[in-house]
C-alpha cells in the first residue's frame, strides 16, 4: 500500500490529523554519527571513532544504532512512497509507520544505558516503532541488529585499545591496505538512496490522486556483485600486501607520491551485498605481515625453537618473519591464534589464516544493515517481493565466485612460493562459508575456521572445493528459496498490485520471458476470470492496462474502506484457487546472521581470557573481586574489558536468538 509523502492520519490521542513523515528534507540525507576522525583517516570506516580517548563501546554502539535508525527511517519513507508497504496487523499503515518517525529515535537511550544485551532486548521490544518494524520485516530485526551493532562496537574498542598502545597498523584487524574504494560508509548509504530514487520512479497516477508510484522498481542492483562480475579477478600490489577484486584497477599517483588505486565499480549502482549474509563483498586484502600479536600487551617470543623433520628453522623474530620463506617459526600461539601456549607457524602454511586481512565490505556497517533489512522486507509476501530479479542475482554471484576460484587456481599454479600461495590462500578464506553448531558462518579471520578450508601452500594445487564457497553454501540456497517464494505468491490476489516494471517480472518494458514471467501472465489472466477479483482494491492497481481490464470485467473502486485495511481477511494474500489441502507456502530464505566482525570479537574474547591468566600469575595485580566466575573476571579487568567479555558472550547469545 502506497503512502503519500504528505500522508496524514487521525491521532487517537489528540484527535487531530498528524503527518506520518517528518517535515523538511534534511532528515532524508544520511550522515554517519560515528565520532572523531583521527583513527581511521585512511580506512573505509567513516571518518570515525575517536576511541583513542575515553570513547568506549557504548558510545560507539549508540552511534552505530543511531545510524541504523536514520537509514531505517529514510528507507521506509522511500519504500512507502514509491513501491508500497505491506498491511500491518492491528493498526493502520499510516499510523503504524508514524511511530517509526516519532519513537524509534528514543531507543538510543536504551542502547546507551545497557549493561547486558539480554536486559536491553525486552526494553527495546517495548518500543512501538520496533514492533512495527518486526511486523514489516516479519523477522526478529531487533536482536539481529543489536547483535551486529555490538559486534562492530567490540571490534572498534579493540582497535581503539591498539591505538592507545601505539600499535595501530600492525596489531588490529581492520583494512591496513585500503586506499580508495568509493569512499565511506556515509557515501555508500547515500548512494544506495540515490539508486533507490533513480530506480524507483514512474509516472502512474492513481484514480484518486496524484501519487506517482515506482512503476519501474528494480532493486536488483543492490544485490549484485560490486564490481563487474563478468571480469576476471585481478591482484593489486600494495606496499604492504596484496589485494584482489574483479576487473583491472586504475593506478594513479597519490598526493604524497605514493601509488593510489581506484577501483572500478562501474556506475556505482551495485553494492556487492551478498544475499543470505549480513555483509557485502568488496576488495579483499591480505598483508605481507603474517604473524602479529592479537593484542599489543601480549608478548611474542623471538626465536624459533627446535625444528625437526622436514621443516627448516627461520631464526627470525616474529616481527621480521613475513612468511615469504617456507620455514618453520615458533611463535606464542596467542599471537597468531587465540589459544594458549606455543605454536608453530609456517611460512604460508595453514596458520596463515591469521594473517591480517579483510573483506573491505565488512567495514560498511550502516550500508550492510540497510541492505540487509531491505532484503528482509523483500523476502516476504508483499509489494517488494518482485522488486529483485533473483535469477540474475544468482547468475551474477555464481559467475563472480566461479571467476574467483578460477583466478585462485590459476595464480596458485603461477606462483610456487609459499608466501605468495599463503596470501592467495588467505584471500580465499573470505570467499568460503562453513557451519558451526548448525549455523553458517563466513570464512575469514575466524577462530572456528576449519583447516580444510585453508589451502596449504605446500600443495601443488589450490584445493578448497567450490562447494565450500559462500555462493554454494549461502547465496545459491537463498536465491532458490526466494525464487520459490516469488513463484508461489503470484497465485495470490496481490498479483494485481504488482507495478509495471517490477524488476523480477519486467525487463526493458516487457514481461520477462522466463518461468516467472510466464506464470505472472497466466496468474493475471486467471484472476480476471476468478470471482476473487472482486476483492481487489482498484485504487491500488498501479498498472493502468491491467486496471482497465479489471474495470472491464466489473471490478469497481475499492469495496473496502480505507480504515479497514489491516483487518483480518482484508489483505491480498489469499490464494486464488484454494485446494482441499492448500499448498504449503514456501518458507523464507535462510540467512546467516553472523556479523562479519564476529571472528574479531571472538579473538578479543579469547585474548582477554588469556590476558587474565597472565594477570593471575602476577600477585601484584589488583583485583576487585575474586575471579570465580566469568562475569567477575570481566570486572577484574576493568569496566571496559568487562563489557567486552559480557558483550562478546551476549553477541553469541543474540545471534542464536535471531534464527528465524
Amino acid at each position, binding site marked *: 500500500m502506497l503512502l503519500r509523502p504528505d500522508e496524514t492520519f487521525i491521532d487517537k490521542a489528540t484527535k487531530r490529523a498528524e503527518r506520518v513523515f517528518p517535515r523538511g528534507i534534511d532528515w532524508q540525507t544520511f550522515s554517519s554519527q560515528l565520532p572523531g576522525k583521527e583513527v581511521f583517516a585512511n580506512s573505509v570506516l567513516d571518518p570515525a571513532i575517536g576511541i583513542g580517548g575515553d570513547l568506549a563501546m557504548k558510545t560507539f554502539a549508540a552511534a552505530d544504532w543511531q545510524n541504523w535508525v536514520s537509514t531505517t527511517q529514510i528507507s521506509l519513507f522511500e519504500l512507502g512512497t514509491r513501491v508500497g508497504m505491506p498491511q500491518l496487523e492491528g493498526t493502520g499503515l499510516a499510523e503504524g509507520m508514524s511511530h517509526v518517525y516519532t519513537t524509534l529515535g528514543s531507543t538510543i537511550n536504551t542502547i546507551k544505558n545497557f549493561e547486558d544485551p539480554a536486559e536491553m532486548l525486552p526494553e527495546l521490544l517495548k518500543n512501538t516503532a520496533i514492533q512495527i518494524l518486526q511486523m514489516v520485516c516479519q523477522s526478529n530485526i531487533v536482536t539481529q541488529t543489536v547483535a551486529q551493532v555490538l559486534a562492530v562496537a567490540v571490534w572498534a574498542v579493540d582497535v581503539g585499545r591498539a591505538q592507545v598502545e601505539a600499535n595501530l597498523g600492525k596489531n588490529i584487524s581492520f583494512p591496513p591496505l585500503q586506499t580508495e574504494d568509493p569512499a565511506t560508509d556515509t557515501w555508500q548509504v547515500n548512494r544506495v538512496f540515490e539508486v533507490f530514487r533513480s530506480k524507483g520512479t514512474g509516472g502512474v497516477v492513481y484514480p484518486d490522486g496524484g501519487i506517482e508510484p515506482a512503476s519501474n522498481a528494480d532493486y536488483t542492483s543492490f544485490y549484485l556483485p560490486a564490481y563487474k562480475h*563478468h*571480469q576476471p579477478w*585481478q591482484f593489486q600490489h600494495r606496499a604492504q600486501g596484496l589485494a584482489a577484486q574483479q576487473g583491472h584497477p586504475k593506478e594513479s599517483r597519490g598526493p604524497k607520491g605514493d601509488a593510489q588505486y581506484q577501483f572500478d565499480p562501474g556506475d556505482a549502482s551495485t553494492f556487492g551485498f551478498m544475499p543470505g549474509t549480513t555483509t557485502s563483498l568488496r576488495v579483499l586484502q591480505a598483508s605481507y605481515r603474517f604473524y602479529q600479536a592479537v593484542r599489543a600487551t601480549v608478548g611474542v617470543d623471538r626465536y624459533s625453537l627446535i625444528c625437526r623433520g622436514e621443516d627448516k628453522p627461520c631464526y627470525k623474530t616474529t616481527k621480521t618473519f613475513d612468511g615469504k620463506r617456507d620455514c618453520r617459526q615458533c611463535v606464542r600461539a596467542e599471537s597468531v591464534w587465540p589459544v594458549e601456549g606455543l605454536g608453530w607457524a609456517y611460512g604460508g602454511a595453514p596458520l596463515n589464516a591469521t594473517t591480517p586481512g579483510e573483506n573491505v565490505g565488512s567495514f560498511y556497517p550502516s550500508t550492510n544493515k540497510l541492505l540487509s533489512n531491505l532484503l528482509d522486507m523483500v523476502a516476504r509476501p508483499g509489494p517488494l517481493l518482485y522488486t529483485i530479479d533473483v*535469477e540474475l542475482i544468482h547468475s551474477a554471484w555464481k559467475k563472480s565466485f566461479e571467476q574467483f576460484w578460477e583466478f585462485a587456481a590459476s595464480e596458485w599454479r603461477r606462483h610456487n612460493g609459499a608466501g605468495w600461495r599463503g596470501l592467495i590462500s588467505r584471500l580465499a578464506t573470505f570467499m568460503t562459508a562453513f557451519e558451526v553448531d548448525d549455523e553458517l558462518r563466513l570464512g575469514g579471520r575466524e577462530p572456528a575456521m576449519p583447516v580444510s578450508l585453508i589451502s596449504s601452500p605446500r600443495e601443488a594445487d589450490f584445493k578448497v572445493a567450490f562447494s565450500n564457497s559462500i555462493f554454494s553454501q549461502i547465496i545459491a540456497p537463498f536465491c532458490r528459496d526466494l525464487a520459490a517464494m516469488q513463484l508461489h505468491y503470484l497465485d495470490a490476489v496481490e498479483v494485481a498490485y504488482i507495478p509495471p516494471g517490477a524488476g523480477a517480472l519486467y*525487463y526493458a518494458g516487457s514481461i520477462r520471458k522466463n518461468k516467472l514471467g510466464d506464470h505472472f501472465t497466466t496468474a493475471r489472466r486467471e484472476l480476471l476470470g476468478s470471482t476473487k477479483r472482486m476483492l481487489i482494491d482498484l485504487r491500488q492497481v498501479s498498472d493502468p492496462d491491467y486496471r482497465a481490464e479489471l474495470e472491464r470485467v466489473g471490478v469497481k473502486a475499492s469495496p473496502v474502506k480505507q480504515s479497514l485495511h489491516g483487518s483480518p481477511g482484508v489483505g491480498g494474500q489469499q490464494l486464488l484457487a484454494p485446494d482441499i489441502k492448500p499448498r504449503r507456502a514456501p518458507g523464507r530464505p535462510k540467512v546467516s546472521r553472523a556479523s562479519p566482525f564476529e571472528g574479531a570479537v571472538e579473538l578479543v574474547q579469547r585474548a582477554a581470557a588469556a590476558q587474565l591468566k597472565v594477570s593471575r600469575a602476577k600477585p601484584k595485580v589488583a583485583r576487585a573481586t575474586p575471579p570465580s566466575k566469568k562475569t567477575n573476571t570481566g570486572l577484574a579487568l576493568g569496566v571496559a574489558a568487562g563489557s567486552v567479555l559480557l558483550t562478546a558472550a551476549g553477541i553469541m547469545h543474540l545471534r542464536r536468538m535471531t534464527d528465524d
Partner: protein
Amino acid sequence: MPPLSSRGLSLGLLCALLSCQAPPDLTADLNEYQTAINDANGAACDCPMDLGYDSIVECDEAVGTVTNDDVQCLADVLDGNEDAGKDYLDCANSAYRFYVQCLQSNPNCQDGWYDDCASDLTAQVAGCPQLSSDLRPMFMACVE
C-alpha cells in the same frame, strides 16, 4: 670529419641502441583488450534477445569470459611480434570501446540496435592493421 675510432664508437652506440631497443610492453594493451571484450559481452547480454537468448543468464553462460589465462595465451602468441600486436590491439581496443558505448546507449533494447553496433564494430576491426596470417588464427583461438 671525425676520426675513425670516433665514428666507429658512434655507429656502435647507434647499433647498440637499435639492437637493444626493448619491444613494446603489451601488458596494458592486453589488459585493456580483456576488459573491453568482457565489457562488450556483458553489455551485449543486457539485451539477450538480440543475441538469440531468452535471458541474461543464458546469454552470460554462452558468451563466456576472457580469463587471465586467456590473456597469457595472447601474450605468448604475440611474443616476438610485439610491434604488430600493439598496432592491432590499439586499434581493436578503440573499436571495442566504441562498441561498448554503442551497446550501453540502448537501455530499452530497441530492435536493430545491436545489429548496427555489431556491424560498426566489424567494419572498424576490419580496418585495423591486421596480424599476419599465421598469428591470426592462434590469436583468435585464445579468446574463443
